[in-house]
């Protein structure tokens, strides 16, 4: 991959330097671009052949000669083009991780680390003095993630700050404020909780676990599952990982169909560009509760299928309040 192309990938994940991003986002962006690079030339050649053959067909028919041969060539070229695009050779193939790591290492050595890349803080204790009066308060909403790196993405882009939203991972990250923030959440009987996760067995069980754990939200408030789940995977063909273990059971919030999918594949949230993650999450938290309907409530978990669906419009949320 050329330097210019790599920089282009960095520009894409960072929205031209406006957002912070993780190396994992860059990995998937590079995968996407390699696929585009491979596909275009070959498909282009086949299209050219088909066009010439088509012209030949028209020319032959006008001269009232037999057009069987040119027609056959055109049809064959067309079918070959379709088959080729769909064939394994042209499926979006992920770059092997070691290959990407080498590219990344070389880039950092030559150009230095790009300014927006998220580097996790080493210390876990809070840097600031503890303000005792903070704990009397609570927040309007919380986003709970399966992975620390998703938490990092949201915090680095000030999602918590801009949306009056606590952000935590189910595993206790970030360690410093974790206990204090979780305790503060319990103080709000109208808290809105959103689960954001990879399409993995652990991720797909996240909302269920949160809704059934007394340390989290059992008996408190419903948990809205925003994604990613297997149903969100369609636009990401070629960027799936293999499942880590084949025998996934349909338990703890995972349906039979989902269990089948999860036994074969995994999809990481990092496939989605940071700007899209932030916009769609904002969409999800802005939905009026009525939009989700009564039908999707099962044991404390509510499903938001569309915020991360491929047809979701991305808006800023309409009219702005001021002040």
């Amino acid at each position, binding site marked *: 991959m050329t330097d210019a192309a790599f920089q282009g990938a960095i520009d894409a994940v960072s929205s031209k330097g406006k957002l912070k991003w993780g190396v994992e986002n860059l990995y998937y962006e590079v995968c996407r671009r390699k696929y585009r690079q491979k596909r275009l030339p070959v498909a282009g050649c086949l299209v050219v052949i088909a066009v010439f053959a088509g012209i030949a067909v028209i020319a032959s028919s006008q001269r009232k000669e037999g057009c069987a041969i040119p027609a056959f060539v055109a049809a064959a070229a067309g079918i070959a083009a379709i088959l080729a695009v769909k064939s394994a050779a042209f499926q979006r193939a992920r770059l092997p991780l070691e290959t990407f790591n080498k590219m990344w290492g070389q880039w950092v050595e030559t150009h230095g680390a790009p300014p927006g890349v998220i*580097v996790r803080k080493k210390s876990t204790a809070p840097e600031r003095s503890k303000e005792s009066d903070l704990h009397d308060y609570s927040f*309007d909403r919380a986003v709970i993630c399966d992975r620390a790196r998703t938490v990092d993405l949201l915090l680095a882009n000030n999602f918590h700050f801009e949306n009056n939203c606590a952000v935590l991972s189910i595993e206790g990250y970030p360690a410093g*404020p974790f206990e204090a923030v979780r305790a503060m959440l319990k*103080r*709000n009987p109208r*808290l809105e909780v959103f689960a954001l996760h990879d399409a993995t067995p652990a991720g797909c069980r996240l909302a269920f676990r949160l809704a059934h754990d007394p340390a989290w939200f059992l008996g408190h408030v419903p948990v809205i599952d925003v994604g990613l789940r297997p149903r969100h995977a369609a636009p990401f063909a070629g960027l799936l990982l293999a499942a880590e273990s084949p025998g996934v059971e349909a338990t703890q919030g995972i349906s039979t169909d989902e269990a089948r999918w999860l036994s074969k594949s995994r999809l990481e949230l990092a496939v989605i560009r940071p700007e899209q993650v932030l916009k769609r999450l904002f969409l999800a938290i802005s939905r009026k509760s009525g939009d989700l309907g009564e039908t999707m409530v099962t044991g404390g978990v509510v499903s938001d299928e569309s915020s991360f669906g491929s047809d979701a419009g991305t808006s800023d949320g309409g009219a702005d309040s*001021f*002040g």
Partner: protein
Amino acid sequence: MTTEMRPPAEDPPVLVRAEAGPPLGIDSNRRRPAGRVGGVFGGRFEEHSARLLRALGPGAVLATADAPLAVDWDACFEVDGGGEREIRDLADWRRVLAAGRLASIRGAFSLVVREPGGAVTLARDGIGERTLFYAPFPPGLVAASTLPAILASGLVDRRLDLASVARYLVYAYVPGEATLAEGVFELLPGEILRWREGELTRSWLWQLPPERPEGEAFDERALTRGLRARLERAVSRRLPLGEAVGATLSGGVDSSLVVALARGFHDRSVFTYSVSFGEGYANELPWSSLVARHCGTRHRIVEISPEAVVRHLDESIALLSEPIGDPLTVPNALLFREASRETGVVLNGEGGDPCFGGPKNLPMLLAELYGGPNEEEAADPLARERSYLRAHQKCYDDLPGMLAEEPFDAIAGDRLLREIAWRFEDPRYHRFVSKLQAMNVIFKGGHHILPKVDAESFPFGVLPRSPLFDRDVVEAAFGIPPQLKLKGSVEKFLLKESIRDLLPREILDRPKSGMLVPVEKWFEGPLLPIARERLLGGLAPMGLIRTDWIERLLAGRLGGARPRRGVKIWLLLTLEAWIRTVFRS
């Protein structure tokens, strides 16, 4: 006071279309009892004084050697132990000043006193409902209620203060004593400034109260009753004797409780006014109508079209002494215009959020709890200040890309952060939230809301009154223990408890929502042409904002997750209009 409401008025809500019309105030037959004030001191400057007087508008008074006291005031009371006495005329003011009892005055005022020896005293009320600007010029001093008047006097060179341009872009108003004009300063709320032969000395007639001591026992019921008593007193002080009163009503708790109290105490009609932006735009009308019905007011829905906004934009902005980027400036002016046909006093619910702990604080708490995940951010000594500026959700993060070279240099060295750093170390407040509350009241009150309603109502002779910014209400607010400000998730808990009997439960329980001015839609549609014209043709050539940034803003190419395009376009539109109509006229 009983909690029974008077029987509801018979008339249903009236829809009033605020049309684009003649210049604001030109057909108004109302005049405020007290007009603007000012003076030129340190020598005989008759020509300049005359210009100053003309620019201050009808009813203005200058302090001179012959008439040394000039006061712009409204709804003032001298509070003395258990009782209070209304200030009725200049004689009352002279008595108060002679007795050294200025600190006991509640209400809106700014005053200019010229002492026999030639020294001058300027004073501004503790909350900032009125204001004063001043500019030393060798050998003298010019002071006035409005900044345009100071510029009109001709005693000050017109030079734009570039750091204040940046301040405006961050806050959407200009906080502190700096103004957009170099060499012209604003008195701070509660400040007394004494000028004597070129020397300035400052003191305070009142400052925000300290916080409640940590761990002090409190009685929730007593606090609730005490707050209720102060709210009732605050509204009563502001009801006009023998006349109808008006009130803006958004349907939120704050304006609703003011309306309910007004209706309970007043023996004349209460007119309520709510804003609508027309069909197709979100509104809070069902809530405000609910309150109007419940309280039995004569309700008007003032419909404001984009055309009316465009028509009156320049005039509304020209009334301001400093630009205010709140898109409610023009709607406020139009609302005051409509209200002036029926009443000379309009109450509002402003002050409830900064005083009683609205949602503004919570982002700061989150920033405080989390710090930043990156190493550099964790080591940033000005991180809190940075979060505070970011919390205003205007242009803080845009400044490096947006400002032209000169204004960017004017704020180098984190100047905007350093100038507020002391507030986070304010020794009067130990708790973080108390510090935020103090900052919010000072900034939002004295530099944004109060100047805005004062300026936009003035041409119509209407008096805006803000009971929730009453000094005694503010004192009560600072005495509330944190556990009663936000209980569970209920914001403004104690405030709501204190007036629970007055309002329907739906109003008390509804989640907070802001006043929605549809700037995003306006600038995707009807107002985009004027935005392009004024930002590219008017603002860009001023050399303050980079043209390429303006183009990206207009094209929606600023990027990021929440670009807030509409808000920022409005902010710049106001800046352009203000510089053109006030600064360069």
